[in-house]
């Protein structure tokens, strides 16, 4: 199953990178004559209300979904590892301030927090990446902190300190590389979550803005043709499901591989 997940992710990345080579259509080219065509040889997944080829829009949307997923969670990982390692290594007041801050952030239902920020800065692909990143680092901070708390008492850390290594050196060369495992697992699950969040935001009209294609905003347009154009609703949802499933399966696989303790 892990291999299936990894395989799907590779396929998705391939499709996203070579999108212009895979399809002959333009994702934003409107052709009213061809509006709401059923899936056919000409349009394998049909066309939408404005006559745009659905398959084309979906593979261009995969670019945006993966870009937002990786960049947003990457940002969350950087912030989480930064705060988490400082909190875990120095302990004391710094630790309690950082971790209480994380606790408070965790009290906010993610969607409400993200929507509130979007209300102020407005929706765009860049803003969404940054906002998802800024609102999802807390779990990773906790994970790396827990790892560092147990790692920093090891002998090799004392040895390193005795040899005159700076705190910065110990954290970045010893502690983070050794404690990054759980963060990696969380990263993979996080991408799945970010893809879902982006789709949800775009579905509400507060994410990727039309005419740029996103699986979420294609679904939003599909809602308008509910009961007429089933393909406009079915396929983008399947794309989200498969993407999220792939990352979740890879995450589960990684977790089993990095954690030898089996039930």
């Amino acid at each position, binding site marked *: 199953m892990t291999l299936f997940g990894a395989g799907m992710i590779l396929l998705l990345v391939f499709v996203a990178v070579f999108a212009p080579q895979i399809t002959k259509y333009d994702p934003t080219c409107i052709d009213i004559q061809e509006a709401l065509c059923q899936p056919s040889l000409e349009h394998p997944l049909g066309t939408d209300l404005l006559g745009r080829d659905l398959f084309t829009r979906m593979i261009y949307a995969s670019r945006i979904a993966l870009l937002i997923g990786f960049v947003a969670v990457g940002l969350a990982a950087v912030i989480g590892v930064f705060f988490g390692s400082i909190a875990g290594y120095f302990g004391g007041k710094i630790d309690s301030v950082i971790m*209480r801050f994380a606790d408070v952030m965790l*009290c*906010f239902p*993610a969607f409400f927090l993200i929507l509130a920020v979007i209300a*102020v800065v407005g929706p765009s692909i860049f803003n969404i990446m940054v906002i998802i990143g800024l609102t999802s680092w807390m779990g990773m901070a906790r994970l790396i902190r827990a790892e560092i708390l147990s790692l920093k008492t090891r002998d090799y850390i004392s040895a390193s300190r005795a040899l005159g290594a700076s705190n910065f050196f110990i954290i970045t060369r010893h502690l983070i590389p050794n404690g990054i495992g759980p963060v990696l697992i969380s990263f993979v699950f996080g991408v799945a979550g970010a893809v879902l969040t982006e789709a949800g935001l775009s579905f509400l009209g*507060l994410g990727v803005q039309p005419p740029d294609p996103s699986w979420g905003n294609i679904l939003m347009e599909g809602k308008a043709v*509910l009961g007429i154009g089933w393909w406009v609703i079915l396929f983008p949802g399947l794309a*989200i499901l498969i993407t999220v499933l792939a990352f979740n399966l890879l995450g589960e696989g990684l977790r089993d591989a990095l954690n030898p303790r089996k039930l």
Partner: protein
Amino acid sequence: MINYIIRRILQIIPILFGITIISFAVIHLAPGKPTDLMLRLNPKIEYEAREKLERIYGLDKPLYVQYFDWIRKIAHFDFGRSFTDNRPVIEKIAERLPITILINTLAMAVILIFSIPIGIKSAVRRGSFFDRVTTVFVFIGFAAPSFWLALLLMSFLGVRLGILPVAGIVSLDFENFAFSHKTIDLLRHLILPVSVASIGSLAGLSRYMRQSMLGTLSQDYIRTARAKGLSERKVIYKHALRNALLPIITILGLSIPALISGSVILETIFSIPGMGRLMVEAVFTRDYNIVMAGLFVSALLTLAGNLIADIAYVYADPRIRYKA
């Protein structure tokens, strides 16, 4: 136990303080002032008019003064007025909140009713056909976006078959119905939103229940229970289940923010007039008082949910009850 609960409630105070700071900061630290957007619509606006508007909203004062003004007001449940219709924000929220709480409570009940038996059965019959089918269901239920499921159900059950209503929480002529008819009408409208709201957490929780049950079943005291000749029923439901349920209570508490997040999208799809939809409308109209209040209230809901989960945990686990 009372001591524990009091201590737990006292711990909420600093968190509550943190919540107000973040709710305030989100709106006020972002580049630009809330009034900028109102003014941008009218480029001809005079400098004096801008100043006046900023004075009305207190935006000319230093940030920390604005913050304490805001805190003092919300301590009296005054969240200001809505920019769009000038009604008090608290009134608009009070109108919307019960619906969101109702849907989430029902969803929580559905989650518990289904996920626990599913989890137990797949753990007890590990590797069976049932276990494999539910595992597939869990992975798909976890990955499928709820709004997509909502659209599929709406187009199939609502539009194609026409057996369930797809929008709102009551019919148009609700006021004229008799009481029993009203209840049925409300329930019929709630079926789709509640099922869609519960599906994701249901999948996740049955997975956790399965893991937790598997973990418990491999404990020594279960072997002891079996060895002393107890029936398998008793071993599973009396000895294993009670222990396996403990981590589930914690996870249930942790899944509350996700459930509340979910109501944003679901209420919008099903045109349900709840908190989530109010928030989305406020974001579109840049109604900052509502956004700020909505954010604050959503965090309060999470906090309340976590508190209930913690108290339930103490109630369920005698070890904590006696220690405290």
